[in-house]
C-alpha cells in the first residue's frame, strides 16, 4: 500500500509537469490554431537559462526561476513574430506546422552550439536538506508536491484570467472567430502575442520543475516531454485548459502505474493505446467541446 501511494504520487508529480507543458500547447492551439512543436524546446531553453543563472552565475534560485520565465516569454513572442506571423495567412496550416518543426531543430542546435552535447546536472531549486519529507514509513519528494501545487495554482489563475479579465475575454473571442473579433476592435496580433507569452512562460516554469525532478539537462531534454504533453493536450481535449491539466495528470499516472504493474518496456505503448481508446469514445478528448457547424 505504501508502495502504491509512492507510485501514485510519482505519477501525479510527472503528470503535473506534463500538464503545465500541455497548457502551453493547448492555449496556443486554441487561439492561434497552430501546433507549436517548438514548445518542448522552449522548456529546454528555460532550463538552460535557470541553470546559467543559478549554477554558473551563482544567484539565488528565485532569480533563476524569474529569469527563466522572462527569457522564455521573450523567446516565445520573438518566435511568433519572426517565424509564425508571416505565415499566418499562408493559406495552408501545414506551412506553419513545418516552420514550427524547423524552429524546434533550430533551438536544439543553437543549444548544442552554446552548451555542447555533454549533459549538465541541474541544481534542484529546493535545498538539499528539504528534498524529501518523511511521514512514518512514507517518503515523499518535496519537488513532487511543489510540481502538483504549482500545476493546480497555474490552472486556477489562468481560468480566472481568461474568464474575468478583458485580455482574457479577447483570447476567448479570438479562439471563437478571429475575423469577428478583429471587427469588434480586438487586436488579434496583440492577443496572439499575449498567448505565446503566457504559454512560453508556462514552458519556462515547466523547464525548471522538470529539471529539478529529473536533473539531467541536455539540448534534447524538452523534446520527449514536449511530445508527451502534446498527447496529454489531445487526451484532455485540445483547446481546453482544464482538459490539458486532467490529460497531463492522467498521462503521468497511467505511465508510472503501467511501468510499475505491467511492464516498464511497454509503458509508452499502453499510454498511447489508452489515448486511442479515449479518442474513439470521445473524438474531441475528455473535456473537448463538440463544435457544431452552423449553416
Amino acid at each position, binding site marked *: 500500500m505504501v*508502495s502504491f501511494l*509512492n*507510485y501514485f504520487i*510519482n505519477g501525479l508529480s*510527472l503528470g503535473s509537469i506534463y500538464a503545465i507543458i500541455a497548457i502551453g500547447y493547448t492555449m496556443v492551439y486554441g487561439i492561434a490554431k497552430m501546433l507549436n512543436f517548438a514548445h518542448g524546446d522552449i522548456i529546454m531553453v528555460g532550463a538552460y537559462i535557470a*541553470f546559467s543563472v543559478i*549554477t554558473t552565475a551563482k544567484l539565488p534560485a528565485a532569480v533563476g526561476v524569474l529569469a527563466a520565465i522572462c527569457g522564455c516569454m521573450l523567446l516565445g513572442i520573438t518566435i511568433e513574430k519572426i517565424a509564425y506571423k508571416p505565415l499566418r495567412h499562408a493559406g495552408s496550416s501545414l506551412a506553419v506546422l513545418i516552420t514550427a518543426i524547423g524552429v524546434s531543430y533550430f533551438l536544439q542546435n543553437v543549444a*548544442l552550439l552554446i552548451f*555542447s*552535447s*555533454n*549533459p*549538465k*546536472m*541541474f*541544481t534542484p531549486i529546493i535545498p538539499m536538506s528539504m*528534498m*524529501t519529507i518523511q511521514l512514518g514509513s512514507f*517518503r515523499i*519528494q518535496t*519537488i513532487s508536491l511543489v510540481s502538483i501545487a504549482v500545476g493546480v495554482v497555474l490552472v486556477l489563475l489562468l481560468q480566472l484570467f481568461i474568464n474575468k479579465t478583458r485580455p482574457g475575454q479577447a483570447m476567448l473571442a479570438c479562439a471563437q472567430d478571429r475575423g469577428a473579433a478583429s471587427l469588434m476592435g480586438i487586436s488579434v496580433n496583440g492577443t496572439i502575442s499575449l498567448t505565446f507569452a503566457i504559454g512560453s512562460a508556462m514552458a519556462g516554469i515547466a523547464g525548471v520543475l*522538470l529539471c529539478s*525532478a*529529473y*536533473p*539531467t539537462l*541536455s*539540448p*534534447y531534454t524538452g523534446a*520527449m*516531454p514536449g511530445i508527451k504533453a502534446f498527447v496529454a493536450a489531445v487526451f484532455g481535449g485540445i483547446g481546453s485548459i482544464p482538459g490539458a491539466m486532467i490529460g497531463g495528470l492522467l498521462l503521468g499516472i497511467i*505511465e*508510472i502505474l503501467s*511501468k*510499475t504493474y505491467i*511492464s*516498464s*518496456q511497454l*509503458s*509508452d505503448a499502453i499510454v498511447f493505446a489508452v489515448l486511442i481508446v479515449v479518442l474513439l469514445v470521445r473524438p474531441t478528448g475528455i473535456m473537448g467541446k463538440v463544435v457544431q457547424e452552423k449553416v
Partner: protein
Amino acid sequence: MKMKKLVSMALTAAMAVSIVSAAAYADGTFYIGAIGPLTGAAANYGTAVVNGAQIAVDEINAAGGIGGAQIEYKGEDDELDNEKSVNAYNTLKDWGMQILVGPTTSGCSIAVSEKTKADNMFQLTPSGSAQDCTAYDNVFRVCFSDPNQGMASAKYIGEHGLATKVGVIYDSSDVYSSGIEATFEAEAANQGIEIAVKEAFTADSNVDFSSQLQKCADAGVELIFLPIYYTQAGTILTQAMMMGLQTQWFGCDGLDGMLDMDNFDKSLAEGVMLLTPFAADAEDELTQNFVAAYKAAYDVTPNQFAADAYDAVYTIKAAAEKAGITPDMSVSDICEALKTAMTEITVEGLTGTITWTADGEPDKDPKAVVIQDGAYVSMQ
C-alpha cells in the same frame, strides 16, 4: 579533324589515369581516415576518437612513420546517423583513404562495414561494441564487444562476492545496453547471482526512473547493475538519493564520462564501480604521456574513446609493419595483408595488452575501477 579528336581523347584518358594514381598512392604516404559523431548528442565520443587518433598519428609521424612512410590523416563527422556515416566513408574514399579507423558507434560501424566489405577495405573500429560490428572478416575492433562486457561484469560481481541478489535497469531500445543485459543474465546464472528485478526503459521514456528504482528498493537488492550510458545514470543516481535508496552500483564503459558532466554532484557517484578499459589517472608511463599530450592539445582529460582510438592507430602501425605493406599497394591488397597480420601481433596499448582472433575480437583483461572522492581508483 578525326586525328585531332583521337589525340584529345588519348590525352584526356592519360590525364584521368594520372589524376587517379597521383592523388592517393604515388606520394609514399598512408591515407588513414576516421569517422565519428563530431556534432550532435554523441559528439563527446566522436570528438574523442578523432582527437585520440590524431595524437597517435602525430607521434608516429614524428618518430618516422609506418615502415618509413608518413601518415596522412583525416576525421569526418557522421552525427551519429548511419546514412551520414556512409556518406562520410565515401568522402574519405574520394580523398584516398586506404585504412579506416572507425566509425565510433555501433550502429554506424555496422552500416559502414557493408561498404568496407564491398570495397575490401581494412576497418578497425575503436569503440563499435555491438556484436555485429565485426560480422565481416575485414573488420576488427579495439574495445570489448557488448556480450563480453556483460559476461565480464557478471563474473566480476560473482568472483568478488559483491552481491548475490541484484537488480538490472537497462535501455531496451538500445543495442549496446540490451546486448550487455542479455549476456549478463546468462552469466549471472553460472555465478549464482539472482536477478531479482529486471527493469527496462526506452529512448522515449528515459526521464523518470522512479518505478524502476522503487521496485529495486521493494525487492531489497544488494546491487544494481546499470549497463547504460551516463546521461541516464546521472538521473538514476539523483532519484535514488532522493528516494533514500542506498545500494552498490555497477556499470560498464557507458558510465565513463559521468564525472565530466557539468555541475555533477560527484558525491552521488561515490562507490560506483564500473568496468572500463581506461583510467586517465593510471600511473603507467604510456597513460601519463598520452594524457599529458591530449590535455596539451585539446584542454580536456581524454576518456576511453580517445584511448581506444589511440590504440587503434598503433595497432594499424604494428600490423602494417608486421605485414610489410607499402602505400603503393591497392586498398584490397592492404586489407588482405593486414587481416593476416592482425592475428599475429600483440599490442601493448593504453587499454591493455591486446591480441586478436581472426573473427575480429580483441582478447584483453577487463579492468574495473571504483569512484572514490570523485576520481577513478583501479580495483584489483
